């Protein structure tokens, strides 16, 4: 009776069966194929695009504000 838990534990703790064949990644169905490079490049590209877009919005807003300042300065010259 005492051996049953030990046998069960030994069964559970057995290592998984060894790999019987190597499959090239390009032979996997597309759904199972997940290469890291597009995700890595995508992540880096996103950061760059987000920062550049934000800088561009600052630039655009600054242009508008400078135009407003010029327009107001023309409308109301200093007394």
């Amino acid at each position, binding site marked *: 009776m005492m051996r049953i838990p030990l046998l069960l534990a030994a069964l559970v703790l057995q290592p998984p069966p060894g790999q019987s064949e190597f499959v090239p990644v390009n032979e996997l169905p597309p759904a199972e194929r997940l290469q*890291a490079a597009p995700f890595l490049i995508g992540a880096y590209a996103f950061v760059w695009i987000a920062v550049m877009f934000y800088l561009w919005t600052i630039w655009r807003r600054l242009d508008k*504000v400078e135009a407003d300042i010029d327009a107001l300065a023309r409308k109301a010259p200093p007394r």
Partner: protein
Amino acid sequence: MRKAFGPLLLVVAIMFVVAPFLIANAPYESTMGLIQKIFYYHVPSWFAMYLAIAVCGVASAVYLFKGTPIADAYATAGAEVAVVFGLCGLVTGPLWGRVAWGVWWQWDVRLTTALLLELIFIAYLMVRKFGGPGAEKLAAATALFGTATAPFVYKSVDIWRTVHPNTNVIPTLKPSMGGPFAFSSLAFLLLCTLLLTARVHLAKRQMTVDEMYLAYEDQS
């Protein structure tokens, strides 16, 4: 600070040209392989967000209690830049998770609180844009709550059980990984400073327009 903008821009540009080479030469992590290299942009994005939040929080407290207009300019800049870097972190994280964990998103404590932090600062910007008169003070109070939330987001991985790596990963990095990481982090913090400087300049010019409008109305 305006005089430092040009040299700072040059330094940041050089650092962001050099960083990919250092990252490419860093060794692959044993279990995640290539995808772990997102780490060199993902974590510094959050560091930059925390810096922007700190600026926003301190400036909001000054504006709330002293009413200094320039503090409000810094708070707005901090909130906007925090949202930009938070978005970078929230996009790069799922791209990493999809390969490392097999899922885009997990509603675990780190990811959820990070999303909430981003939403708080989006709320700050929306309050400012659509809140009408007095919205600046209301937004400043929102920023204080957001700033108080940030340390919990950072420490959440150490307090609760989560799929996300904990904060111990960074101090235990081997020099071959720690060097590129430190370089990348510095580049992001300088980029954050650069964006804050540009945004504060814009806010100051907007204040000039407001003053000129008031002066023009007084005249007419």
